[in-house]
């Protein structure tokens, strides 16, 4: 009973840090960089991806006994593509501006390796509830990562956060941050930070292990 | 034959280290004293060690054969002095390994007459007889490689030799032995040439001399017997002009194929001191018991060119010539390729062309204690490498331990460790050291396969 509890929490938590899809697994880079020039774009993208992740994870998991092994990839793609199409229209219905700034990248959620990867690696082998938790965790991790990149890029690049102006007008914006190269640099910076934190974590773990043999 | 344009009488690339030859080039060859103990390694050459034919406690006469060749890739050894064999045991060598050697105690009062053997007459002997005679005389390349000369003289089947090159280039700084031999032993050289011509069947002989030894050129030109098909060519001064591959390239414009032999371009190259030794020894049926070396460098008081018995220890040699108190580096040969000595009790062998001694000052000035910077890709090594390798990239690969890639894609095994790349490197990267290690690793990795 206890073991199951822990593993359920773990299904969710691992996506946030230990197996963070962006910073650790470096998956789904394309949207992470392309639409993270503002925080709101990053958030929308993250939520849309999370939605597709959850829905497709649930569907795949629910249908896992119905789909024969040979037809699984094509089925997964169909399922994912349908949800993406749905999200695409929903966002268009919510705000045309938002849809315009995300461009074709909403449609490109289909080919985000994260989604197919989770469907294949996790959802197809686990129960609906675990698959949902996993998708939720991964999606949250993805969204948070995107948001981090987006926040940095928006603050420096546009002097605003979620579209709200931050500093006085005299603030010099760093145009590079909204350019593609800024995306690469912001990503590299976060990767370095995460690497460094992880290193420190393993080092301190190693130390405690040494101390308590 | 010549497919690409080469600077006149020289090769491309190379370096110009300070020569320091004036210090000893005017000093005539002198005989060296006999040390109280001589250590004669049974393996002073590439190939199989000789088989000792003396027992401990046996008395030997100077010039007597003490080791018989073990197969074709081996040469005989001779007693460098009349005396008694104290023991046959392991002795330290320059490479740091211990090698079986004959410890000989010369008789202090002996006249040191040399024991003559079966003479080999150049006019009547067949090529095969001469080859055997050379092997029995224990002749190896005296330039430093110590490759058995008789092996070299027998080209692989199907190869025709048309040119014999007598290599008197001697491009290493400080060394003047070949220079002095050319000045003082011209008759021996020409006699040696006769033997070599007979063995190889070459139609032409070229003596190669660097432009800093004009007096030797004049001397040889004057002394040259008119019946020899011989010419003397002077190459510009450049290191490493004396390397076999490059001297052939310089004189004939032929490039020995990668991994090939001089015979592949129908040439053969013999060191001038080796030639002189053949011409001196064979008519009397003697073997090599001594050789000419230059003892020089800033750490030596009585610099000079000495005819020294094989087996003299470095310590004795330095003592006799007055090494300074602050000796810091001693190396056998010149400063470019000569290996540094860590133990002064190693013997001088047939391949030792000189002893160069640096004091602390030179060591610090030239090599010591300098910061090693990362490679900055300045390409000086690329412009220095006479074999057109890419030492810069090889160095980076060596650092990443990509030894097989170095050998397979970048011709590591062609490197003959001339040191030109390390000499010019502004980052002070010990490239040659890396390559030596890499070559060793590649050989090791290749053996089981």
């Amino acid at each position, binding site marked *: 009973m206890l073991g199951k509890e822990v593993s359920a929490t773990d299904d969710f938590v691992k996506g946030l840090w230990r197996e963070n899809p962006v910073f650790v697994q470096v998956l789904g*880079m394309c949207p992470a960089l392309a639409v993270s020039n503002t925080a709101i774009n990053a958030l929308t993208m993250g939520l849309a991806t999370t939605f597709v992740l959850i829905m497709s994870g649930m569907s795949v998991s629910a249908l896992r006994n119905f789909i024969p092994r040979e037809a699984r990839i094509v089925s997964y793609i169909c399922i994912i593509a349908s949800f993406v199409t749905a999200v695409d229209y929903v966002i268009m219905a919510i705000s045309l501006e938002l849809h315009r700034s995300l461009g074709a990248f909403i449609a490109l959620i289909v080919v985000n390796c994260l989604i197919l990867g989770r469907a294949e690696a996790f959802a197809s082998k686990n129960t609906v509830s675990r698959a949902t938790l996993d998708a939720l965790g991964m999606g949250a991790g993805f969204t948070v990562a995107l948001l981090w990149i987006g926040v940095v890029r928006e603050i420096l690049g546009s002097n605003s956060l979620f579209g709200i102006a931050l500093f006085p007008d005299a603030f010099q914006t760093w145009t590079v941050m909204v350019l593609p190269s800024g995306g690469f640099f912001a990503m590299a910076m976060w990767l370095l930070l995460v690497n460094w934190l992880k290193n420190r974590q393993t080092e301190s773990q190693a130390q405690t292990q040494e101390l308590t043999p | 034959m010549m497919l690409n344009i080469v600077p006149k009488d020289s090769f491309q690339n190379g370096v110009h280290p300070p020569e320091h030859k004036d210090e000893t080039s005017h000093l005539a060859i002198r005989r060296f004293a006999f040390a109280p103990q001589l250590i004669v390694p049974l393996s002073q050459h590439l190939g199989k060690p000789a088989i000792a034919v003396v027992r401990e406690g046996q008395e030997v006469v100077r010039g007597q054969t003490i080791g018989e060749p073990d197969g074709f890739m081996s040469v005989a050894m001779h007693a460098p002095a009349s005396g008694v064999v104290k023991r046959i045991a392991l002795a330290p060598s320059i490479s740091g390994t211990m090698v079986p050697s004959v410890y000989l105690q010369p008789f202090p009062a002996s006249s040191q007459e040399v024991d003559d053997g079966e003479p080999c007459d150049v006019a009547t002997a067949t090529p095969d007889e001469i080859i055997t005679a050379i092997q029995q005389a224990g002749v190896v390349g005296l330039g430093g490689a110590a490759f058995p000369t008789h092996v070299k003289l027998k080209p692989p089947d199907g190869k025709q030799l048309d040119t014999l090159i007598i290599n008197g280039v001697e491009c290493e700084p400080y060394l003047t032995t070949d220079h002095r031999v050319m000045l003082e032993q011209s008759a021996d050289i020409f006699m040696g040439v006769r033997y070599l011509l007979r063995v190889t069947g070459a139609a032409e002989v070229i003596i190669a001399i660097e432009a800093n030894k004009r007096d030797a050129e004049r001397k040889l030109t004057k002394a040259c017997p008119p019946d020899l098909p011989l010419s003397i060519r002077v190459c510009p001064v450049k290191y490493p002009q004396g390397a076999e591959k490059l001297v052939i390239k310089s004189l004939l414009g032929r490039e020995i194929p990668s991994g090939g032999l001089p015979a592949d371009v129908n040439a053969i190259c013999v060191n001038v001191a080796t030639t002189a030794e053949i011409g001196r020894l064979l008519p009397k049926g003697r073997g090599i018991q001594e050789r000419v070396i230059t003892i020089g460098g800033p750490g030596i008081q009585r610099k000079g060119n000495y005819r020294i018995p094989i087996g003299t220890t470095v310590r004795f040699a330095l003592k006799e010539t007055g090494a300074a108190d602050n000796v810091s580096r001693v190396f056998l040969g010149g400063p470019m390729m000569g290996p540094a000595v860590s133990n002064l009790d190693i013997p001088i062998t047939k391949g030792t062309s000189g002893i160069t001694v640096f004091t602390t000052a030179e060591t610090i000035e030239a090599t010591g204690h300098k910061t090693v910077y990362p490679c900055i890709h300045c390409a000086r090594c690329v412009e220095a490498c006479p074999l057109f390798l890419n030492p810069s990239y090889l160095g980076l690969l060596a650092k990443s331990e990509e030894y097989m890639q170095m050998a397979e894609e970048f011709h590591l095994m062609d490197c003959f460790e001339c040191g030109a790349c390390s000499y010019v490197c502004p980052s002070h990267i010990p490239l040659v050291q890396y390559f030596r290690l890499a070559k060793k690793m590649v050989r090791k990795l290749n053996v089981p396969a």
Partner: protein
Amino acid sequence: MSEASHWSIFINAALINNFVLAYFLGICPFFGVSAKLETAVRMGGAVSFVMLVASVCAYSINLLLEVINAPYLRIISYILVIASTVQLVEMLIRKLSPATFRAMGIYLPLITTNCAILGLALFQTNRGYGFTNAVVYALGAGAGFALALVLMAGVREKLDLANVPQLVKGTAAAFVVAGILSMSFMGFAGLGR
């Protein structure tokens, strides 16, 4: 309304709005296979080829979708048709030219569902390119992708032998290089007008 010239479309897709360096499309294979020059060249060739196939497919499907007036089927049909066409072509290549297949065949399955490919199909539709324009666009995008990949691979091979700090090694270094390349490609802006 002026029609952009083919040259302009090509330069735009290859250099100015390079798929990898400006749109971040195909980042996964970009980082995945750019460690060695040889694989990068092959991957570049394979991607260019698939882009061409995808472009033709997308053009045809779009015609069909417009006839039956079903824009909502675009995403799903693009991805399915492109994936299956590439698979068909792959089988064809394996039959016809085993050498070519060995050279780049193994990369084909990796890229069928790649964002650069689907991105190309969607962009050309959004821009309303006709057949020739679409083909030119695909060629440009492919060339640009291959160029970026090859440049990246060269630099990364060089970095293999450099003493890159442990923390940076790998993905972070690759991102920095990509960022600098992306900055350098800004020099091409304004070409192809």
